[in-house]
């Protein structure tokens, strides 16, 4: 119950016009703060929803793979530089952002992750690491403005943000495979 409440509060806060304009002012906060926060609100809400109607999720997402595939497709879409522009210019895309992150990424992620086998989890992580790597490279290195609404210097900062993200995931994996698990 608590999770649901926090999730809804977070979601509402994120929908406040002043918060929106603040978040969307810079590309780095837009992509690496607003979107993850929307996702987190979805995860918090998902905690409640998945317990409320377990049979639905059991039926459609028993292995966790359908849910994860959805997460994958939607996040891939939001990594396109064009999607960022359109989120600001086209009303429908903007609405889709507020719907897709909590409900098509957050909730399925919350439901799928515990269901996935260790191998599948590894596979997901090892797909996101190079993906973030490519994004970092693209945004740092591109000689042109990728999004019409954001300056080139800002996109470089976003690039380094993705680089940090990739580096953290890599570090997590490395420490995970080299610390001793034999006690478990």
């Amino acid at each position, binding site marked *: 119950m608590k999770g649901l409440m926090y999730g809804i509060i977070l979601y509402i806060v994120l929908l406040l016009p002043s918060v929106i304009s603040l978040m969307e002012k810079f590309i780095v906060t837009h992509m690496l703060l607003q979107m993850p926060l929307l996702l987190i609100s979805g995860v918090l809400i998902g905690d409640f929803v998945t317990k409320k109607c377990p049979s639905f999720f059991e039926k459609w997402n028993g292995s966790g793979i359908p849910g994860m595939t959805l997460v994958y497709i939607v996040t891939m879409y939001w990594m396109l530089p064009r999607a960022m522009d359109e989120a600001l210019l086209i009303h429908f895309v903007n609405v889709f952002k507020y719907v897709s992150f909590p409900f098509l990424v957050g909730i399925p992620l919350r439901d799928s992750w515990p269901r996935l086998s*260790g*191998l599948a989890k*590894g*596979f997901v992580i*090892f*797909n996101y*690491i*190079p*993906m973030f*790597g*490519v994004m970092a*490279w*693209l945004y740092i*290195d*591109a*000689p*042109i403005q*990728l999004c019409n609404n954001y300056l080139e210097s800002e996109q470089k900062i976003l690039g380094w943000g993705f680089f940090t993200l990739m580096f953290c995931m890599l570090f997590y994996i490395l420490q995970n*495979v*080299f*610390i*001793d*698990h*034999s*006690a478990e």
Partner: protein
Amino acid sequence: MRMEKGKSTIIQQLIIAAMMIILMMGFGVLMLLQQGGVVDFGPAAFYQFLTIHGTGMIGGAVLAATAIMWYFLNKYVKLSLSVLKLNIVLFVLGVVMIIVGVFAFEFSGSWTFLYPLPAISSGAWGTAGALTYLIGLQLVGLGLLIVLLDAGRAIIQKYGSLGKGLGWDVITGKKREQDAPPAAVVASTMVVIVDTAALLSGTIVIFMNIIHVINPAFTFDPLLAKNLTFAFGHILANSTIYMAVIAVYEILSRSTGRPWKSNKAFLIAWTMSTLFTMIVYPHHLLQDTVMPTWALIVGQVLSFANGLPVLVITAYGALMIVYKSGIKWRMGSSLIFLSMFGWTAGVIPAILDSAIMVNHVMHNTKWVPGHFHMYMGLGVIAMLFGFMYYLVQNDQSIRPNQLDRFAFCLYTLSILGVSFSFLTSGAISTPRKFATHFEQWQAPAIFGGVSGIFLMIAIGIFIIYFIRYMVNRNKDFSVEKEIA
């Protein structure tokens, strides 16, 4: 007769790999004959052959080596058979896409697909070809990735961590040498680490190329692209022998009845290999003087050092275990012993070429293919067929006969012929990857092409043996079923 779990999948995988390898040899022969002026398909076909030959050979070697690693690792840890099967499916899908990309859409960017070539072909191929090829390659990579992740998971489950899989606790003295992980586990751990790194950089560079092909306005740093491309290509190609060498440890120790234990020197050697394999790739960039000089010097020094583990530990160990062992030579053990010669012999031209001074006048000549045709052709391929013969040697009524022994000799001589024709060409400065040669460069190419034909005959005899074996086995199965 009951089959071990997974063995028929392994044999299928090996046969797919072997068929691919012999087919790719065909393209290799055609290229050499064209360079020798014997036949002429035109440059477009030549560079398509070049692309498919490189990709297919690496793919085939990786598939075969994965089978070897999986088979032996599975004796020590619990691996998932369905992952292995999924890998084959992804592999075949990827290969089909690569073939379509190369022959239907005429992609001929070579298997090194050096940025920005896939997008800038000066009209030779279009977006469709480059994309089909790159996505196909990515699928093959994904297949390998799941096998590696599964192996890594299983090793961690049994031994605690990848560090323990490499035996670091034995090196530091926390654990006794007798309790060290077996050679197959140590080698697999190394491969899991280096190949995952290779696939990460490969995926990044493949996706980068895909973006660039779709929208050429998005450009990337070519030097970083080159670093990632060669890190990917070098590690992947190099690691095939580290997977396949598991067969050497297992088969030679069984055939001689002598143990091949992991001791401290052995473990240190493998940790060295793990590290060096990942960071020696700058020897592919010795021509790029914009690279920091220290990186290039490190590239040379580490390439030298990378020869030490095999020359001092593994090859030496193979010689020691065979020496006065009273071994009864069979096809399997003979090929395996030969493969160690191929590996060490193939290392020599590579070490010499990694000296910056030598590299300056021998790199990008046929000297380099000379090295890896010996290293892969007489190393990995001998391990592959040695393993196949070993796998079936106690199983059934078909025994290798005179013909197989003849094929063994023919194989040895002809692959040496191919390798030395390349080395000779390299020594007289013949550039590699040329659709046609000046007249003074043609003779070695013709010699190589003819050797290649004999090589195909030898490999063909090996393959026929396995097809006969599979046919027989299926008969056995149906008889068993009827009796049941």
